[in-house]
């Protein structure tokens, strides 16, 4: 996304932060850009520059999320673009992709432009609408992908997320068609026949609880097929929310073959497992479902070795009544934006699997590259857009969904102690979060 928004008028001198977790270096932010990093920053700062004390904080490029549900238009009771953008800013994000399964579905230029404008008006985060692959997410006929790509929203990521483009011929055509504008199809890999009525990961826990099983093969078979299709037609493919060990292995294999495939994993699939379903609390109901400890292990390894390119939240707000019900009737999905970085620290950094430079890649550079966002995911260097997240990795907090900026409270981490806290977020030089508070 380009710099069409107003740029910051105030200068900010961020003192003592550690870019990508390295040695402390001051960062001077001026006119929407990073003016200087290091010893020159303080020297170049003008007299009116505002100082942001960030001693010991990790400085990261503003995070980019390939996968959120902002619910507007249609379900403004759960989230709006504005509340979702505040939530994103609190999580250190400066750009989010908004999935197409709104009401009406984002399958026309009109709807994607509406969402894009709502994001621009919010000022807290750039919003990049995702366009539906098929009309009405029905999986039958292609939506007008070119019109969405050419619109002011400049859609590059197309997805029927929530639904799988299961028809192999339609998937092939979509993969081919978006090449004309360097688009990518982000597949929600779920064979619909193998998951009819499915409620949770199929295995020991589902069998004991009497909940219809959601087998890993229903995800893996679609991913394998799509990788082969993408390779055959020379297109790029993105796999949404990879959740199983087998999926990681298939993607690793496809990449070795030279297939142009990228993949994302959610924070919750890096941490939570299906035994949490034991009490039938639908706060743990999500699509794809929570899997086993072996899957979690494989996902962490896959993210560490680059098989999985990025972390995406699949932030999915739901009103209270959609979760305070029987498991089978409850909605699927979890909040993710305001806890993502903490969960990644907990599962990947504190375990030694990733350093902060790699976190910057997985949560900013890689998703920006996949979504073809030009102004995000850039290095923290002079001349780059001032999209910055400041993160206190030594902090600790007990998650309280009621205190979040999201309109909804369906966080699976409620009451959980997680490391780290976003203390500041800058969007093109304008602070959207300062001192841990939304601006």
């Amino acid at each position, binding site marked *: 996304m380009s710099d069409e928004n107003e740029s910051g008028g105030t200068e900010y001198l961020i003192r003592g932060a550690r870019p990508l977790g390295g040695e402390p270096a001051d960062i001077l932010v001026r006119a929407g850009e990073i003016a200087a990093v290091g010893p020159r920053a303080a020297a170049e700062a003008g007299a009116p520059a505002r100082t942001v004390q960030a001693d010991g904080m990790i400085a990261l490029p503003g995070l980019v999320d390939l996968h959120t549900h902002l619910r507007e238009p249609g379900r403004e009771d759960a989230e709006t673009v504005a509340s979702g953008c505040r939530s994103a800013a609190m999580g250190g994000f400066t750009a989010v992709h908004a999935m197409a399964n709104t009401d009406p579905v984002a399958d026309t230029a009109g709807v994607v432009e509406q969402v894009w404008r709502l994001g621009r008006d919010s000022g807290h985060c750039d919003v990049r609408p995702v366009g539906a692959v098929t009309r009405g997410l029905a999986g039958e006929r292609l939506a007008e992908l070119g019109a969405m790509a050419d619109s002011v929203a400049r859609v590059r990521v197309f997805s029927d997320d929530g639904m799988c483009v299961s028809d192999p011929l339609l998937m092939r055509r979509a993969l081919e068609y978006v090449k004309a504008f360097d688009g990518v199809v982000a597949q929600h890999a779920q064979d619909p026949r193998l998951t009819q009525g499915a409620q949770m990961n199929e295995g020991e826990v589902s*069998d004991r609880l009497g909940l219809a*099983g959601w087998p890993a093969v229903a995800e893996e078979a679609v991913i394998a097929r799509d990788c082969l299709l993408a390779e055959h037609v020379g297109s790029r493919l993105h796999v949404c929310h990879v959740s199983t060990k087998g999926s990681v292995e298939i993607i690793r294999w496809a990449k070795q073959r030279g297939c142009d495939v990228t993949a994302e994993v959610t924070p919750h699939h890096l941490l939570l497992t299906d035994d949490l379903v034991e009490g039938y609390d639908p706060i743990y109901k999500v699509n794809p479902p929570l899997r086993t400890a072996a899957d979690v292990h494989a996902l962490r390894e896959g993210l560490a070795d680059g098989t999985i390119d990025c972390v995406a939240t699949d932030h999915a707000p739901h009103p209270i009544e959609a979760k305070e019900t029987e*498991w089978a*009737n409850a909605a699927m999905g979890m909040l993710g934006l305001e806890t993502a970085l903490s969960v990644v620290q907990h599962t990947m950094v504190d375990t030694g699997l990733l350093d902060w430079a790699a976190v910057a890649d997985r949560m900013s550079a890689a998703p920006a590259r996949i979504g073809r966002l030009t102004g995000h995911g850039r290095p923290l260097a002079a001349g780059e857009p001032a999209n910055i997240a400041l993160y206190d990795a030594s902090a600790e907090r007990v998650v309280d969904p009621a205190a979040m900026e999201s309109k909804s409270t369906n966080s699976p981490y409620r009451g959980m102690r997680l490391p780290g806290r976003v203390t500041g977020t800058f969007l093109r030089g304008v602070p959207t979060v300062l001192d841990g508070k939304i601006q």
Partner: protein
Amino acid sequence: MRHLLSTADLGHDEAVLILDTARELAQIGERSVKKLPTLRGRTVVNLFYEDSTRTRTSFELAAKRLSADVINFSAKGSSVAKGESLKDTALTLQAMGADGVVVRHGASGAAHRLAGWVDGSVVNAGDGTHEHPTQALLDAYTMRERTGRLAGLRVAIVGDVLHSRVARSNVLLLHTLGAEVTLVAPPTLVPVSVGTWPCQVSYDLDEVLPKSDVVMMLRVQAERMNEAFFPTAREYSRRYGLDRDRFALMGEDAIVMHPGPMVRGMEISAEVADSPRATVTRQVANGVSVRMAVLYLLLGGSEPAIGQR
């Protein structure tokens, strides 16, 4: 223990206490005045989201024989039909002062959810494809009554295990009580992780029958063939139905059980269902005693209480 949600929650001694209490209470049913004052002033709500005249009536009779006030709250023709959530229904029952809620629901885990929203005791009377604990208790009661023991008893459970709450509750309870369970079904109708359950699995009914003291037939819905669980009802019946020829393979003292409702000609032939070695009606009679015991132990308040756990 405040609730009865799963037979997994019952230890050996607790389960035996329920069965022993049921045996004492069964004597009431033989008197001319079939009533005890034990739960006088207590309110039991039968909350049934699925039609089940058999189970609802059994619970109703059990509660009434203990002098409890019984309210039947059926999902049809009530606020539930107008879209009231399970939680709001729970809060309503709570406000009315229900001491016990007996719940039948099509969703697995509904009884667990309810237990989180009410102060009273919740008895799971069947939740989706999860469990049906009082059915397993009355089955165990019937087995003990007919064979005199449970430890070492060889029990075959035959049919649609995958979708059966009766099978889940029975496997757990019978294991706790020391019986040896073998599940018999086509491979499509057992859960994928059945190898982790405390029981054996066989696909061959003829091989299991001679080695069984108890053969429990589960209802199999013919519509399952539309989801390719088996090719046709006839083929299912040929391979897994208990007909006269197969009945002859069983030991002379072995009994045939069925939780009902039976589909004669599908999983069980009429000759077998009507045999004196079939315990179907006895199970129904025992159901009342076992449910009396459960309500008594959960709501009776004083000794003997189930579960010092």
